[in-house]
Structures are given as structure tokens and as C-alpha cells.
């Protein structure tokens, strides 16, 4: 290790320059529109050679900096290519007539204006908000009650925790089809027509499935919060003669205020991004007779699915991208509010 670190001048130069040469050659081939099949391998080998050469450069003074650079590069590079670059491009595309492959002109805010003229889109925004609020309340309430149960003196707490958490292991698509089976093959003997075929009930069905999946996870966070309450505080309150309800509202809830904040925002953002279950359960179908004077035939389509359908199914990439940017703005605002709220809470405490 030591000798390598001190470097090997000839090898270092060969690898370094060879790497650059390969990279340049590959890029020249690319620019010439060559379809030489090894040009990709050339590029990759060139990059590897470049870094190996760089690593082996015999310099004590700069070695640490070189190592820092090499260490940062892989993750930072993938991050820039997959997140930052597409984000910037995407925001730009939302102002054009982008087709997913190319764009010919800038259209200003046209995409943004046209989406607000589309009742089906407004409907899906409203539906998403309803869904988010319903979930935020129900998931937190149920999870908190489950957490109370799992921190009580009842037997079999370990089993309950595990059982309630289990649904969280399953991915949205598989889970969606399992529940499609439950709704359209099992519950149908009680409900007569599947809830998934009735627009109002379908939303309710998605909420049920979502709670089923998510409440166990949020419960775990509440359990952690509850078990962090110092025992002597609870003891003191019981000596003072506080009953269970009083302890809950006066001691427990205030003591886990920060946990509640975390869970609220966690459920909020994740419900907002809901896609898999929506797609697998109803595909967004549903009928609304009169919404803003027009008929909506995508009655259970939430925002994330609407973006996907607009871009991929209806092949309107620019409009889909503009909706996605709006989606991003809403989520960013929510996150900013979260930071504000948590900071405030911490100061108060």
C-alpha cells in the first residue's frame, strides 16, 4: 500500500496519458457519428486509466487532494447526471413544445396556462389534496393508537409490532394487485359491485390500502418517540394522580411534539407522491358527472399518475413536464414549511 501510494512515475504517466488519449479518441469517434461498437468500452477504459494514473502520480504534496477528488467523483457525477442535469433541463423543457425527443420553440407559460384550463387536471389536484389530508389525519391517528397499544402492558407486543409493520415491506405494484384481488374477488360478496368501480368508494379503497401499507411504519416512529419519554416524568405524573387520559394529553403528546411533526410531513409528502397503488388499483378511471361544468372521466387519477398519463400515455411531454414542475414547487413549499415548523418547535422547547 505504501509503495503504491508513493507512486510509480512511468506507470502513472502511461495510464494518465493513455486514459486521456482513449477518452479523446472515443469522444472524437462519437462526434464523427461513428458506430464503432467498442467506442463505449474505450471511453470507460479511458476514464479508469485516467483515474488510476491520477492516483499514482508521485506527489506527496497533492496526494490528499487527488484522493479527495477521486473519492468524491463517482457519487457526485452520477448525482449530477441523474438529478441536477435533468432537473434543469426539465424546468427548461416545461417552457417549450418538447415532444420527449426534441423541441422546436419556446412557448412561454403556455403549458402552465393550459393545464389550469383542464378540469380533469384541476380535479386530480383537488383529489390529491383530499387524499393527502385524509391520509395525514388517518395514518397518524391510527399509527399513534397502534403505538400506544404497542407500548402498553399488553402481552405479545413484539408480535403486534412485527405484524403491523409487515405490509410496509411490499412494493406498491404487487400490493396493488393483491388488493385488487381483495376488492374484486373477495369483498365483492359483501359489496356486490367492486369498490374500485365506484368513483367515491375507489378513493376510499385507495385510502384503506394506503393506511394498511403505511400505518405500521409511522407507528414505529411513534413508538420510538414514546419510549424516549423519561420514565420519571411518567412516574411523577402518576404520583400526582393523573389518569391515563390526562397523562396522554398533558405529558405524552407535548413530549413527542417533534415526532408528530416528523410523521405529519412524512405522511404528507409520501401521500402526495402516491403513484404505484393508484395505478395498480384503478388506473385512474372513474366518472364525475359535473365538475366545473364539465365531465371528468378520470375520476380517481391523482397528480402523480396524471403527470405520467399526460406525458407517456397521451404523448404530451411538454405539458406533463410543466405539471411535474408544478408538483415539484408544491412539494418544495411543503418542505420549506416543515423546516420552519420544526425549527420553531425546537426553539420553544
Amino acid at each position, binding site marked *: 500500500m505504501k509503495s503504491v501510494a508513493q507512486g510509480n512515475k512511468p506507470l502513472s504517466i502511461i495510464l494518465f496519458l493513455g486514459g486521456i488519449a482513449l477518452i479523446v479518441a472515443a469522444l472524437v469517434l462519437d462526434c464523427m457519428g461513428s458506430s464503432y461498437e467498442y467506442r463505449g468500452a474505450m471511453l470507460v477504459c479511458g476514464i479508469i486509466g485516467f483515474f488510476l494514473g491520477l492516483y499514482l502520480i508521485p506527489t506527496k504534496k497533492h496526494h490528499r487532494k487527488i484522493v479527495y477528488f477521486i473519492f468524491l467523483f463517482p457519487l457526485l457525477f452520477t448525482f449530477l447526471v441523474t438529478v441536477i442535469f435533468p432537473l434543469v433541463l426539465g424546468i427548461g423543457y416545461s417552457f417549450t413544445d418538447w415532444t420527449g425527443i426534441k423541441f422546436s420553440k419556446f412557448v412561454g407559460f403556455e403549458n402552465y396556462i393550459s393545464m389550469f384550463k383542464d378540469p380533469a387536471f384541476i380535479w386530480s389536484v383537488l383529489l390529491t389534496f383530499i387524499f393527502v389530508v385524509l391520509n395525514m389525519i388517518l395514518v397518524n391517528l391510527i399509527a399513534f393508537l397502534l403505538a400506544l397499544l404497542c407500548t402498553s402492558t399488553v402481552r405479545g407486543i413484539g408480535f403486534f409490532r412485527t405484524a403491523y409493520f409487515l405490509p410496509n415491506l*411490499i412494493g406498491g405494484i404487487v400490493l396493488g394487485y393483491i388488493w385488487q384481488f381483495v376488492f374484486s374477488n373477495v369483498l365483492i360478496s359483501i359489496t356486490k359491485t367492486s369498490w374500485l368501480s365506484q368513483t367515491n368508494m375507489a378513493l376510499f379503497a385507495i385510502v384503506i390500502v394506503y393506511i394498511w401499507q403505511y400505518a405500521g411504519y409511522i407507528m414505529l416512529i411513534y413508538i420510538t418517540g414514546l419510549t424516549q419519554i423519561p420514565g420519571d416524568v411518567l412516574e411523577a405524573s402518576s404520583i400526582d394522580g393523573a389518569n391515563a387520559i390526562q397523562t396522554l394529553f398533558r405529558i405524552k403528546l407535548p413530549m413527542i411534539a417533534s415526532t408528530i411533526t416528523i410523521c405529519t410531513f412524512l405522511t404528507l409528502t409520501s401521500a402526495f407522491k402516491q403513484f404505484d397503488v393508484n395505478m395498480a388499483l384503478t388506473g385512474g378511471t372513474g366518472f364525475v358527472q359535473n365538475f366545473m361544468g364539465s365531465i371528468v372521466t378520470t375520476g380517481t387519477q391523482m397528480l402523480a399518475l396524471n403527470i405520467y398519463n399526460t406525458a407517456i400515455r397521451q404523448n404530451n411531454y411538454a405539458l406533463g413536464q410543466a405539471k411535474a414542475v408544478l408538483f415539484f414547487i408544491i412539494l418544495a413549499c411543503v418542505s420549506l414549511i416543515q423546516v420552519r415548523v420544526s425549527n420553531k418547535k425546537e426553539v420553544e422547547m
Partner: protein
Amino acid sequence: MKGARRTKNIILGIIGILIAAYVLFPFYLVVMNSFKAQTSIVESPVSLAGASVAQLWENLTKVASNSNFNFWYAFGTSALITVISLVLLAVFGGMAAWVISRNNKKKWATAIYMVFIASMIIPFQVVMLPLISTFRDVGKFVGISMLQSIPGIVFAYCGFGGAMTVFILTGFIKGIPYELEEAASIDGCSPEGTFFRIIFPLLKPVITTVTILNGMWIWNDYLLPSLMLGQNGKVKTLPVAVQAFVGSYVKQWDLILTAALLAILPMIIIFMFAQKQIMSGMVEGAVK
């Protein structure tokens, strides 16, 4: 007083069991119906009638041999993608987090760190469409297929998982006393040697957390692979294969439920062995 407590516990226990029954009911349906043929699933989805081990074997064989589903291939692809992504994220994430936390007084490191954190609020939807077109164009340009390929999707997972990984790891590395490294450096150990020999082994618990969080996400992810690999492409991950198979109008519940069972089984098995770590890892990830 004692009696009241006992009654309370019994009532709570019953409530707990009822809820557990509700939560576990879909699992029961999946497992039990995997032992049944299509007709008895449709006729009596809840009862055990018609269930037999021989039928389970037949369903498994049918799932494995269905060429439109290609179960084991999709399973292997998913496993490969998940494992490679997790290893790379742990190694590259550890490296990057170490550099950032050891330079936390310098502006560039703080800037990189802030960008990583800020990026965590970016929803996938806003980058997915340009991501696909970028990958396609870059792939065509340099002659390395980025879509429809395992390296391409691993690359994307490293990019998307990077921010959270660095965030959690940096927080942990900051807590490791710098004296440890200085001592090694005085002994003549190179910086990279210090990282791999001294710091990286110390990261084990937090890397477990990161791996669990990333692993659950990557294994179950649908949207990214469906866009990158196509809804019915040659390379399919398990969720994409399930969607492609089930989404067709031929609702063969015997195969679907057996496939669902196979898809969730690995998660359940891993969960059994690492229950504590997974549950605490998920909480830590959320609380941070």
C-alpha cells in the same frame, strides 16, 4: 386495581389481535390461494377448499415456465440491480461522505453537502422525463446503452440514492474522533488507506441502516425501471414483470398470486433475520 389492569390488558390484547388479523388477512389470501387452482380461487377465494401442496408446485412450475412472465429472470435481474446498487452506494457514499465531513470547514464541501440535502425534496416525477431523454442521447452518443441495461439503471440508482446516503453517513462520520485518523497518518498510512482500513469498518452500523433504506426502495421500485427498461422490455425487474403480466387482461389469479408470493417472500425472509435492524433502520432514516 390489579383486576382492572388485567381486564384492560385482555381487552387491549383482543383489539391487537383483531387488528393483526385485518393487517395479515391479505397475506393469508396470497399464501393460501397460491395452493389453489384458478377455478377454486375464483369460486371460493377465502376458504381453504381445493388447496393442496401439489397445486402449489404446479403453480410454481407454471409461473417459472411462463415465457411472458419470465419470473426467475426478472427475479435475478432485480436481485442483481439491487445488490450492485447497494454495494456501490455504500462504498461511493462512504467515500464521498468522508471527504465532505473531513473538509466541513471548506466552502466547496459545504456547498456540495447543501446541494445534496436540498435535492432530497426533488420528486422523481420532475426529473423522470428529461432523465430518460438524457440517458438515451448520452447512450447513443458514447455508444454505451444507458436505457434497457443493468449498468444504466444502477447508475441511476447511485444518483438518486446518493443524497440520502451521503446525508446519513456524513452525520455519522462527523461523530468519529479525528484523532483516530491523525494517529494513522503519523504511522505513515495514506489518506485512502486510513479511510478503507480505519473509517470504513467503523461505518458498519450506519451502512446497515443506509442499505436497508435503499434496499427496500430499490427492490420495490416500479416507476424508474418501467421508464428506463420499458414496460415490457427484455430486461425486466420484478415489479415491472408483475405489472406487465398482471396488467394484461388475462387475469390468471393462480399465477398472479403465486408470483406475488414469490415477489414478497425474499423481503419477508430478510425481514425475519434482520427484523431489529430493519425496524430501527427505517426509524432512524425517517427521524434524520
